[in-house]
């Protein structure tokens, strides 16, 4: 390979890397997640009825419990992996991030937040109300029902991983989030995260009130409380926008004359 070619390809790379905003990684992640969730939904359509009604049936073990024992370690690995990778590759010179690079990272964070929001939708809305569909239709005979295996132990960990990724991305690459800890961002991640351990309250409560599912039962209200903290997306968005404005001061007059 000649030196000229190498130089040329280096210039192309530089030009490419100079793109200030690229939401395609976020789009693709969301597309992949959507395809995955649709696949999961189809699996559920069939194996919910065929193998999910009786937790003591061998087919339940095969099609549902095995799924859970597979997903949980993978999720743990993904959580550690993403956090570890982002930390390992953190910007160790965070005080000297150039404005354009900082903007690029802020916009990348918006992409992360989009992924987090997307997974929050699937977890907190789609799979959670679906849990009501299932449990109010059939008999809830175990803590690990098909809808729980996909809701609590799949869709919740996935949004936790996405939130963790977003939080750690900001923490390791964006000066304002690296130097101090953003209170709203922390709440935005930690509140929905706490929904996962809150499953303990839910299942403990159900040991008293066996099998019939009243969705508004007080034992479910822990989920509600922690769900409120997702509203800290408000403050998080403001913190991002504050910095976007600071970094774009040169166009203030243009914006204010819109």
């Amino acid at each position, binding site marked *: 390979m000649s030196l000229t070619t190498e130089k040329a390809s280096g210039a192309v790379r530089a030009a490419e890397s100079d793109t200030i905003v690229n939401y395609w990684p976020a789009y693709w992640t969301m597309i992949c997640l959507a395809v995955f969730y649709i696949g999961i939904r*189809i699996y559920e359509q*069939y194996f919910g009825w065929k*193998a999910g009604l*009786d937790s003591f049936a061998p087919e339940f073990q095969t099609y549902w419990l095995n799924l859970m024992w597979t997903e949980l370690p993978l999720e743990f690995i993904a959580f550690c992996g993403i956090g570890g990778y982002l930390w390992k590759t953190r910007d160790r010179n965070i005080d000297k991030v150039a404005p354009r690079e900082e903007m690029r990272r802020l916009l990348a964070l918006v992409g992360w937040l989009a992924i987090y929001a997307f997974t929050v939708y699937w977890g907190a809305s789609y799979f959670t109300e679906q849990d009501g569909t299932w449990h109010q239709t059939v*008999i809830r005979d175990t803590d690990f029902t098909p809808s729980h295996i996909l809701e609590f132990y799949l869709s919740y960990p996935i949004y936790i991983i996405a939130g963790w990724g977003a939080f750690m991305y900001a923490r390791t690459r964006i000066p304002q989030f690296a130097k101090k800890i953003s209170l709203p961002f922390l709440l935005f991640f930690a509140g929905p995260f706490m929904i996962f351990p809150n499953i303990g309250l839910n299942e403990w409560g159900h040991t008293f009130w066996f099998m019939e599912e009243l969705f508004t039962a007080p034992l479910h209200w822990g989920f509600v409380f922690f769900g409120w903290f997702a509203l800290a997306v408000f403050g998080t968005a403001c913190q991002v926008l504050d910095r976007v*404005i600071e970094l774009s001061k040169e166009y203030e007059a243009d914006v*204010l004359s819109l």
Partner: protein
Amino acid sequence: MTIFFGKLAEFARGRARALAFGLAAAIVATTLPAATPASAHGERSQQAFLRMRTLNWYDVKWSKTEVNVNEEMVLSGKVHVFSGWPQAVAKPDVAFLNVGEPGPVLIRKGAYVGDVPAPRSFTLQVGKDYEYKLVLKARRQGRFHVHVQINVEGGGPIVGPGEWITIKGDMNNFTNPVTLLDGTTIDLETYGITWVYTYHFLWMAAAAVWILYWFMTKGIIARYWWVKAGKANELITVNEKKFGGLWLAGTMLAVIFGYAWANSAFPRTLPMQAGLLKGIDPIPLPPQTVTAQFKGGSYTVPGRELAVKLVITNSGTEPVKVGEFTTAGLRFLNPEVFTTRPQFPDYLLADRGLSVSDPTPIGPGETRELTVLVQDARFDIERLSDLAYDTDSQFGGLLFFFAPSGARQGVEIGGPVIPRFQAGATL
């Protein structure tokens, strides 16, 4: 307009359903050989004492096991409300006759306790027997396990025996005609759905227009900037306020019109009906002439054998034999009494599962101590053997005595049993 949206909704429904079914069918095609259908509905995870000592099901019959979509079948039988109702479960003061099935594959056209229609909840008396009947109409094609079930408030669903029902045909042809008080007949399966879609989606579309209108004026970032720059009050113009006022006026007009229209279109509406049904009476059974006094019992875990010592007194006029023990939907038969196998789901029928230490009939006026042995793998498969691990290790059930005339008497038995974990252990 409504017709257009109706057609749109129908089209969308058809397309989405076709897509969902198509994808599901693809999965089915690739995985069918590996999947085995579930027959139980979660009852096996209920504690054994709860299943044995709450409701004892007997004479359960499914009028058909193969029906076409729109065809009706009857699920009927009797249930004994156990006298020794466990303390851990609320008394059946509020109970509801239900069906254990995977979603509404059959709809419940009628439910009766005795001859009384029971579309709502009612009270069961402990120690009494009740006759029930469920009229079910096939809706969705497939092969489904269908149980009788009674839900007890504070206790949960208590599931009775289940049977496989094959439904042939196509759910798309299902209809559920209902005649209203004014004499018109409607199909409840689809009644009003198009209008529900139209009404909801029109409002949602209006909401999207409202949101996008404001979003498109300056977006999010610019507005934030304006507010930060102290220009918040310049963001909404007088014209925009006028537009908002008009928007709200239109909304209120639509709401008033919708409300008035609904009142004129449906002038006779009633509130939903609620409250406990009264007049549900137990079966008037003749006084019992056979009694069985519990004298101790054990459950041998490795042998799946329940051994119960009873003192039986026959004060009737005919000799009697112990023929059947039923509990938690299972039937254990004494082959000396049942020479032919009755029609009953195989997974619950142990046709050689019962034996007695002295098989000779108990004569009129005789009192005899007997050991009744209940032994079958079904005891274990249906997880009644977990009695040994329950917090309330008491069993319960109905023991049926048979006289030569064919007369049958069910006698409630139950009491604490001692688990034996060693093979070969005896009572």
